[in-house]
């Protein structure tokens, strides 16, 4: 096996094919060990869900007034994670940020799996998920249609569009890469890859349409990325609940989504870089760029937190102020302060260049950011509902083993999908990495003008 640590010369086209193929070799015991652990956790999650369906929603700790709890928290969290992939593949593509090329495939896969995970939660939360099709507009005998004025229906449209377009984007990006895998493999693998590659040959006519289509998809996906979390935020902002009813919510949610999404990209990519030995492709400058994005979005988020507190105070609204005071000092205060620490304080270390290029520091910060962002959604949803207008409706939500296990199980579901993906598909884009490499030239070392 060739050594692909930081080379003196950049990789050649053939190196890229070989190194990506290497990631698809038969995995070792460590991989199967992880798969078993993740599979067991997922099984426990499925059992917990089965129990909840059998017992009823009381098993999930649902009591008035807190009818939206960990499930909706996790739903918003996972949708947020799903933002980094399409941001990297669409917005950074349009901005021609070349450092995206070696991370965008893994990030796109992450997006799709995160949205698939997020999509489970409204179903779990709704209890009788076999009626989920009620959400879709379908022709029916009684002429009943969804209420299109409801933000919850907007959500259905926004998220299903997001999942579909991200998947289209992902598949289009994969076609030329799968063709490369087809040409390099034999036997049944070759037959499967050949089917998936749709007979791609990389002829000039194919590239011409492909490039145009890719650019157009990026242009369509860019406003979509910004719209999805805005729509999710309106699930809250359209209601009158103190702490929710704010025009700040759309940009606040989008920024937080990108922040947490990049943290998850790092959580996935750093081990991938280490175990697949991809240091020649995912270099320090990539980590540095991601660190800067996390730092920037973290600072913007801190600004939004300050705005949120300021507007609550400045509104003069008694309920807004009471809700804020309760959040900061009472039952769930620990969650709020944990969130401030994870999201505002911990990324500050990334001001330091050595921290931005250190995998260990980046990993720790990313995990803290993920914890912080999960709690951010918790702090928006639970304390606001627990302490709204009337004292006689106040109440506290306490998690139960059932809903806790389902939430933990959702992480297992996400990781099992991702771990499966990186072993059958190129987790590094063969084509786009080649595009950013120095071109093979006969005369002269560098061909870029």
């Amino acid at each position, binding site marked *: 096996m060739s050594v692909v640590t930081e080379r003196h010369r950049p990789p050649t086209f053939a190196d890229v094919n070989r190194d990506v193929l290497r990631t698809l070799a038969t995995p070792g015991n460590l991989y199967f060990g992880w798969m078993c652990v993740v599979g067991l956790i997922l099984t426990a999650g499925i059992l917990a869900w089965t129990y909840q369906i059998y017992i009823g929603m009381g098993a999930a700790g649902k009591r008035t007034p807190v009818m939206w709890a960990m499930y909706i928290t996790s739903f918003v969290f996972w949708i947020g994670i799903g933002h980094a992939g399409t941001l990297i593949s669409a917005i950074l593509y349009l901005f021609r940020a070349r450092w995206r090329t070696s991370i965008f495939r893994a990030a796109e896969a992450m997006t799709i799996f995160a949205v698939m995970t997020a999509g489970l939660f409204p179903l779990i939360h709704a209890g009788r998920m076999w009626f989920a099709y009620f959400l879709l507009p379908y022709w029916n005998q009684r002429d009943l249609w969804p209420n299109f004025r409801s933000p919850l229906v907007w959500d259905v*449209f926004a998220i*299903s*569009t997001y999942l579909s377009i991200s998947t289209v984007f992902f598949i289009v990006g994969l076609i030329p890469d799968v063709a490369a895998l087809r040409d390099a493999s034999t036997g049944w693998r070759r037959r499967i890859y050949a089917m998936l590659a749709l007979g791609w040959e*990389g002829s000039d*006519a194919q590239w011409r349409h492909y490039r145009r*289509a890719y650019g*157009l*998809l990026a242009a369509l*996906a860019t406003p979509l990325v910004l719209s999805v979390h805005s729509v999710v935020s309106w699930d809250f902002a359209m209601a009158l609940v103190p702490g929710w009813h704010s025009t700040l919510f759309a940009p606040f949610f989008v920024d937080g989504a990108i922040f947490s999404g990049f943290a998850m990209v790092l959580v996935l990519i750093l081990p991938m870089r280490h175990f697949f030995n991809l240091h020649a492709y995912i270099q320090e400058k990539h980590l540095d760029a991601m660190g800067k994005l996390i730092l920037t979005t973290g600072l913007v988020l801190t600004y939004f937190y300050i705005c949120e507190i300021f507007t609550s105070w400045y509104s003069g609204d008694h309920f807004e102020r009471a809700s804020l005071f309760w959040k900061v000092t009472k039952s769930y205060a620990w969650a709020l302060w944990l969130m401030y620490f994870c999201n505002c304080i911990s990324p500050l270390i990334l001001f330091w260049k050595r921290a931005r290029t250190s995998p260990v520091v980046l990993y720790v910060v990313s995990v803290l950011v993920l914890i912080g962002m999960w709690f951010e959604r918790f702090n928006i949803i639970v304390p606001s509902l627990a302490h709204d207008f009337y004292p006689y409706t106040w109440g506290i939500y306490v998690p139960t083993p059932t809903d806790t296990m389902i939430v933990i199980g959702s992480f297992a579901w996400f990781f099992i999908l991702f771990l499966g993906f990186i072993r059958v598909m190129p987790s590094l884009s063969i084509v786009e990495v080649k595009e950013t490499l120095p071109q093979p030239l006969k005369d002269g070392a560098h061909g870029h003008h």
Partner: protein
Amino acid sequence: MATTETVLGVFAHVDTTVRALEDLRAKGYHDLTVYTPAPVHEIEEALERDRPVSRVRLFTLIGALTGTASGFLLTIWSALKWGLVTGGKPIASIPPYVVIAFELTILFGGVATLLGLVILARLPRLRPSAAYDPRFTNDRFGVAVHCAPERGPSVRQILTTAGAEEVGAR
């Protein structure tokens, strides 16, 4: 159609490939197929000077506009079907329907783009074209020239002079 021959030159470098394309163009050969492992700006430039822009964008436009129209139609029509006034708002309230119309614009536009790509790039292709070589998804560039058989030798000459690693008929 037995009167055409395909001559394939395999190249290892971008500059030699571009040189071959320029020479072929100068000699009046325009029926070419170029295979590249990744899109290469220089090669595209050499080829696309006399080619129209891809029509994928037309598919995108039509798909997106269909999406906008169906978004508004679905919401307004279904609201009028059951004229239920809520919150004193008009039955067909446009602002919330913009969200649905926007999402469907993107959805239909994206799916139409995919469809356009599949149709225009002639995918799926069930068996490889005659000139295709698996090295073209790895690190080699291919220039296939479709010409009359009697011009074959001169095409071979051009490809070899430009720096092709191997030249052969397909």
